[in-house]
């Protein structure tokens, strides 16, 4: 088997098939990046998986999963002002959490250089929204590189790191979901390790590092000067690219959208020229002006919002150019990922003579398959028990994590969702003046440490009336089982897990109830007690993540796979197991019978208590796996 870790540390040049996220790690190594931090979130966790593939004692840089994105940014910044080239990565909405720190970065003289890697998510494949983080770049005068594929993720990181280091500034490398997860065969350069320099080089004389009063304006001035230096870079860099033939029509675009356009235009003759800019901000004004001047019609093909379009139009106005410039023509153009199909449609709207309309057959009917909790998931048992206790009028507030999926039928536990850690405080607001509808908020354990603490403290501090259910599964499950502050391990080593209960007690919360979620009746009783408390109460609803647990078990030899069954004699086809408990392991036959899918059942038996006639049989050994597969 090829070992990713060995591959990443290869000294001479080599070629390998890699994902965009993996290519980045090689770029970090080659550039001598010394500190990398993150908080997990799709589409970026595989960057950490690639880092984890390198044995800890051979890792050329320090890496940590911090408690949240803001903390991760601060740790990376601290290292960078000490002279180390640093990088921080997280998902799109992570920048909202990091923002208070992030927007100040460009004011600072970051002597080591800092690359902020964003995993944006046009199309909202795995995020609450598809926010266009280029707005933050403009807001904070931070340049944005826009790689289109794994090869560019690699080369653009190297360019971004160089710029960050020479200009002493933050630089954004903006990846999108299908750049992170794209795979291609790349030719990597040699790695010549930099001589290791651990000297702490922080010196206030390099500052000022204190943005107050009189300092603010010279600091802002410097940020603006750097930005104009980067603009010159953006105009002259060989990373910009032009393809196509037509001088009459042109397209200005960036990133993966450019590849979509090239794919669609490949089928046409006399294709419009495509100017693919390496940086979306600051705009390469000279380059754009020349392109406008040499084309009669230009289409600004811009995924999500219209930032480049506005600047290009104003620039053409100032320059007195008569080029016909088209950007967004309808609301749909502001939405979704610019896939080849989407781009085809947009081009057809503007130039129907260039691109023919797509013809799509009438759709077939296929039942939807929403993501759901895994077989054996402790969250399912919790929701099933909690639903039985709550009245229809009660209000349930969801939070972010696997347990968010409780909002789906058949549980429908969770009627509002915002962002990580928001449930307690939203629930506090819902409790005001409210004497009739009980408020229950949910929260995962990774989220608890990420952004929930202020809301929890506030509920206590301001004497709010609600019940928080902490869904403790010991891991950051949704994003791939990263350890968190309560896990007893960090990315690098064992730590003392911070116990949730003691934290809550330390705050002074008195009404704390704890129960394993598989004890459904007990959980119901505990919740009744918690709801009866006037003020703030917490139920810790605990069960280890069964996906993680089962995977670990299966890695050992002689794993015995056990599964429950349905006794057809006693089954009365109430469908409590398949339709209300809703474990995906149950199969509902057209004649009403219920059976167990042997591909899915893990034999956890958490379902047995949900059958009114006890027709679900004890788990039996189905097979023994001698060798871990």
């Amino acid at each position, binding site marked *: 088997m090829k070992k990713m870790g060995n591959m990443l540390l290869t000294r001479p040049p080599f070629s390998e098939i890699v994902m965009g996220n993996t290519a980045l790690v090689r770029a970090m190594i080659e550039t001598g990046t010394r500190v990398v931090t993150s908080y997990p979130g799709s589409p970026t966790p595989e960057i950490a998986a690639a880092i984890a593939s390198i044995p800890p004692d051979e890792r050329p840089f320090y890496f940590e999963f911090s408690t949240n994105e803001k903390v991760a940014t601060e740790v990376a910044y601290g290292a960078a002002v000490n002279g180390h080239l640093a990088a921080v990565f997280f998902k799109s909405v992570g920048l909202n959490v990091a923002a208070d720190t992030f927007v100040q970065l460009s004011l600072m003289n970051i002597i080591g250089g800092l690359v902020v890697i964003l995993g944006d998510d046009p199309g909202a*494949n795995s995020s609450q929204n598809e926010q266009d983080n280029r707005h933050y770049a403009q807001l904070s005068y931070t340049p944005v590189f826009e790689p289109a594929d794994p090869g560019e993720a690699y080369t653009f990181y190297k360019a971004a790191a160089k710029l960050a280091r020479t200009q002493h500034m933050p630089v954004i490398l903006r990846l999108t979901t299908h750049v992170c997860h794209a795979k291609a065969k790349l030719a990597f350069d040699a790695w010549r390790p930099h001589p290791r320099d651990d000297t702490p080089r922080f010196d206030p004389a390099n500052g000022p590092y204190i943005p107050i009063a009189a300092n603010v304006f010279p600091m802002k001035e410097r940020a603006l000067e750097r930005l104009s230096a980067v603009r010159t870079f953006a105009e002259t860099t060989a990373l910009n690219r032009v393809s196509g033939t037509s001088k009459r029509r042109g397209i200005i675009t960036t990133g993966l959208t450019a590849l979509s356009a090239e794919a669609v235009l490949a089928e046409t003759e006399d294709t419009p020229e495509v100017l693919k800019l390496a940086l979306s901000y600051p705009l390469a004004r000279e380059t754009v002006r020349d392109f406008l001047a040499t084309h009669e019609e230009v289409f600004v093909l811009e995924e999500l919002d219209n930032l480049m379009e506005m600047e290009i139009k104003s620039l053409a106005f100032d320059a007195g150019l008569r080029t016909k410039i088209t950007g967004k023509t309808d609301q749909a153009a502001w939405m979704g990922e610019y896939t080849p199909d989407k781009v085809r449609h947009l081009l057809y709207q503007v130039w129907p003579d260039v691109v023919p309309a797509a013809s799509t057959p009438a759709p077939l009917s296929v039942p939807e398959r929403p993501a759901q909790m895994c077989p054996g998931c402790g969250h399912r048992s919790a929701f099933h028990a909690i639903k039985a206790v709550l009245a229809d009028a009660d209000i349930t507030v969801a939070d972010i994590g696997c347990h968010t999926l409780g909002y789906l039928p058949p549980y429908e536990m969770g009627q509002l969702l915002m962002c990580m850690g928001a449930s307690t405080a939203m629930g506090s607001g819902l409790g005001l003046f409210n004497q009739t509808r009980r408020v229950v908020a949910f929260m995962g354990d990774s989220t608890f440490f990420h952004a929930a603490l202020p809301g929890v403290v506030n509920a206590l501090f301001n004497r709010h009336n609600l019940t928080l259910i902490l869904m403790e599964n010991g891991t950051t499950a949704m994003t791939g089982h990263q350890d968190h502050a309560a896990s007893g391990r960090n990315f690098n080593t064992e730590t003392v897990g911070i116990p949730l209960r003691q934290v809550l007690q330390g705050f002074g919360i008195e009404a704390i109830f704890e129960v394993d979620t598989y004890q459904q009746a007990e959980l119901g009783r505990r919740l009744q007690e918690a709801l009866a408390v006037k003020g703030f109460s917490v139920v810790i609803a605990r069960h280890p993540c069964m996906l993680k647990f089962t995977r670990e078990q299966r890695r050992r030899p002689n794993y015995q796979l056990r599964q429950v069954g349905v006794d057809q004699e006693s089954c009365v086809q109430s469908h409590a197991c398949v339709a209300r408990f809703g474990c995906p392991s149950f199969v509902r036959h057209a004649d009403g019978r219920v059976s167990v899918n042997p591909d899915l059942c893990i034999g956890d038996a958490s379902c047995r208590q949900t059958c009114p006639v006890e027709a679900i049989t004890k788990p039996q050994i189905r097979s023994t*796996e001698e060798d871990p597969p």
Partner: protein
Amino acid sequence: MTTFNIYLIGVGGQGIGLLSEIILRAADHSGQSAVAVDTHGLAQRGGVVVSQIRLGIAAGTPLIPGHQADLVVSLERHEAMRGLDSAARPGGTLIYYDTVWQPLGVRTGEAAEISAEDLAAACQERQVRLVSVHDPDLTDARQQNMRVLKTIHQEGLVPGISQADYLQAMDDLMTGGMLASNRKLFLD
């Protein structure tokens, strides 16, 4: 070089990612250039997982334009129908492992399960050749992906890739008992 598009679709946990990576690497071993991308929405968690491979492209978008997949590979019957619907081109091929992981609506009783006959009829209507794989001797569901790979190879469904290329790709990605049992399955 002409492009050959492969669209793989299944349920989270079925091993679509590994199957896709084996085909991608086998294509590389056969000397063909290729790009690929995995798409997993809200993590895997029992939702739909898609992977796309484009042979004959060294740099370019890995996203296959609508209804231009020459080969759709699925590991589940409902997902086979979904892949047929969104990706297969007329004249293309759909290969799937005939197992069912019922979607939520089927389990709650709101939707009907798709039958093998429904799928065959839809394939005929869309002018797509259907290859159905099912192996009653296969005890470990986690090998269904390799069982499908075996038929892909036997039927020569991906042009230009030899048995040695597939084996080499399996070698790249697996080790120990997992490699041994999957090699055996593939070669038997």
